[in-house]
C-alpha cells in the first residue's frame, strides 16, 4: 500500500458514505414528514444535510492524490463511452452538483416541496449510479479478486451502513445543538430522533448480516478460483486486520446497534443514544476503512 492507494481508500469510503447519507436522509425525512409534518422533519434533517457536502468534497480532494499528473485531471471524463473510471468521475461530479443544488433549495426553501423532492430523487439516482460505477471500475477481467458480484454488493453495503450511522450521529448532534440552544417544544424532535435511531439500528443489524454473507461467500468463491492468492495473503499477512475488521463491524453494527435499538424505545435517554450512535459510527467507520484497505492490499492480478 502506498499514498496513492490510501487516497483511493479515502475517496471510495467518503464518497460512498456521502451517497449512503443522502439516501438515508431522504428516507428519514420522508417518514418524519408523514409523522410530524414538513417543518418538524426539516428541523430534524436540514443540518444533517449540510454535513454531506463537505464529506463528498473531502473524498474528491483525496482522489486527486492518486493522480501523478493532476494538471490533466480534467481529462478523466474523456472516455465516458468505454471507461467505468470516467463514468465514476462523471457521476461523482454530477452527484456533487445536483446534491449541492438540492441543499441550497432545501436550506433556503426555494421552489415547492414537490420540486425539491424531485431534485433530491434525481440526486439519489445519480448517487446510486456513482456507487455502481465505483464498483465496476474494479471489475477487470485480469483482477479475479475484484471481478465478482461481491464488489458492487459490498460497496452498496458499505454505502448504506456508513450512511445510516453517519446520519444517526448527525441527527444526535443536531438534537444536542437544539437542546443547547434551549429551543422550545423539543418533544416532537425527541420522538422523531428516537424513531429514526431505532430504524437506523435495525437497518445496521440487517446490513451487518448481509455484509457477513458477502464476506464469507467472497472468501469461498476466491479460494476455489483464480483469486486463491488473495485468500492466502489474508491468511498469511493480514489475518489480524481481517479479524479486527469483522470484530469491529460486529461491535458497531451489531452490539452497539442492539443497545441503540433497546434504548430508543424510552424517552429522556437522548444522551445515551447519542453516545451509542457515535460509538457505532466510529467502530463501523474504522472497520470499513480496514475492509477497504484489505480490498486493495490483497488483490490478485492475473499476468506478469
Amino acid at each position, binding site marked *: 500500500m502506498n499514498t*496513492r492507494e490510501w487516497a483511493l481508500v479515502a475517496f471510495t469510503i467518503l464518497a460512498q458514505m456521502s451517497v449512503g447519507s443522502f439516501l438515508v436522509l431522504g428516507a428519514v425525512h420522508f417518514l418524519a414528514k408523514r409523522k410530524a409534518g414538513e417543518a418538524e422533519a426539516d428541523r430534524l434533517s436540514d443540518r444533517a444535510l449540510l454535513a454531506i457536502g463537505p464529506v463528498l468534497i473531502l473524498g474528491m480532494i483525496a482522489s486527486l492524490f492518486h*493522480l501523478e499528473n493532476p494538471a490533466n485531471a480534467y481529462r478523466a471524463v474523456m472516455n465516458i463511452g468505454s471507461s467505468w*473510471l470516467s463514468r465514476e*468521475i462523471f457521476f461523482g461530479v454530477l452527484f456533487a452538483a445536483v446534491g449541492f443544488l438540492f441543499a441550497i433549495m432545501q436550506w433556503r426553501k426555494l421552489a415547492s416541496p414537490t420540486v425539491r423532492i424531485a431534485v433530491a430523487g434525481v440526486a439519489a439516482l445519480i448517487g446510486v449510479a456513482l456507487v455502481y460505477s465505483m464498483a465496476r471500475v474494479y471489475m477487470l477481467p*485480469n483482477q479475479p479478486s475484484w471481478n465478482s458480484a461481491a464488489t458492487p454488493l459490498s460497496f452498496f453495503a458499505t454505502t448504506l451502513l456508513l450512511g445510516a450511522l453517519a446520519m444517526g450521529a448527525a441527527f444526535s448532534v443536531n438534537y444536542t445543538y437544539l437542546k443547547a440552544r434551549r429551543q422550545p417544544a423539543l418533544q416532537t424532535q425527541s420522538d422523531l430522533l428516537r424513531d429514526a435511531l431505532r430504524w437506523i439500528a435495525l437497518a445496521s443489524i440487517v446490513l451487518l448480516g448481509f455484509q457477513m454473507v458477502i464476506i464469507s461467500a467472497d472468501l469461498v468463491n476466491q479460494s476455489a478460483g483464480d483469486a486463491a492468492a488473495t485468500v492466502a495473503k489474508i491468511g498469511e499477512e493480514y489475518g489480524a486486520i481481517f479479524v479486527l475488521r469483522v470484530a469491529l463491524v460486529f461491535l458497531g453494527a451489531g452490539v452497539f446497534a442492539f443497545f441503540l435499538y433497546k434504548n430508543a424505545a424510552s424517552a429522556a435517554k437522548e444522551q445515551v443514544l447519542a453516545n451509542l450512535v457515535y460509538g457505532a459510527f466510529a467502530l463501523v467507520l474504522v472497520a470499513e476503512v480496514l475492509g477497504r484497505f484489505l480490498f486493495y492490499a490483497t488483490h490478485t492480478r492475473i499476468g*506478469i
Partner: protein
Amino acid sequence: MATQKAFYFDASACNGCKACMIACKSKNALPVGVNFRRVLQYGGGAWVPDPEYPDFLQPSGLFAYSLSVACMHCQNAPCVNICPAKAIEKRDDGIVLVDEDKCIGCHYCEWACPYGAPQFDADKGTMIKCDFCVDLIDQGEAPYCVASCPMRALDFGELDELRAKYGTVSAVAPLPPADLTDPAFVMTPHRDAQPVGQGTGRIYDDEV
C-alpha cells in the same frame, strides 16, 4: 481491412541474454525500474532423494526457459478501453500508443494490463510503454529489440503473416491466458514449455 502489427518470439532459440531488453532500454532512454521489453526466466522442478541411495539427490522434472515479453499491442487492448483520459490509442496498424500529454497518471492501465506493459515514469509523471519503435516502423525498419537479438529469436510483422509462418501459440506459463486480451503475439514454445495458469514453476529473475 485494418492491419495488425505483431511480435514473434522463438523460445526454443532464446538463450536469455537480455540483449533485446538492453537495446530497448538504450533506445528509449528508460529510467531505472522501467523496462518495455523484459526477459523472464521461468523454471521449476525439484531435487529429490534417489530411491536406492536416499543420501543422494537426483533431479525431478527440472526445467527452465526464457521468455522475451513486451507490449502485446493486443487486438482487444484493455488499456485502450479503460483509460479514462483517452490517452492510449490504437493506430490503424494495430500499434498501441500512450499520448503522454494526455495521461493523468492514474495507473489504471497498470491494473488492467495482464502483461505489465504500461509502466510509470516518475520524471514525466505519466505512464509510458513500448511503442513498437513506431519511428523505425514508419521508415520501414525493424524495432530495436528484433534487430538486436543475436539468436534471431525475435521477429515482427503482420499478425496474419506471422501466424501463417510460425503457428498460433500465443501463451505459455507464466503468460496470462491469451483469450483475456487477444494479444498480437506468436511464439514457438520451448521444449519444456509449461501450460498457462498451472503454477508448475516460478519466475526466477526478480529484476524484471
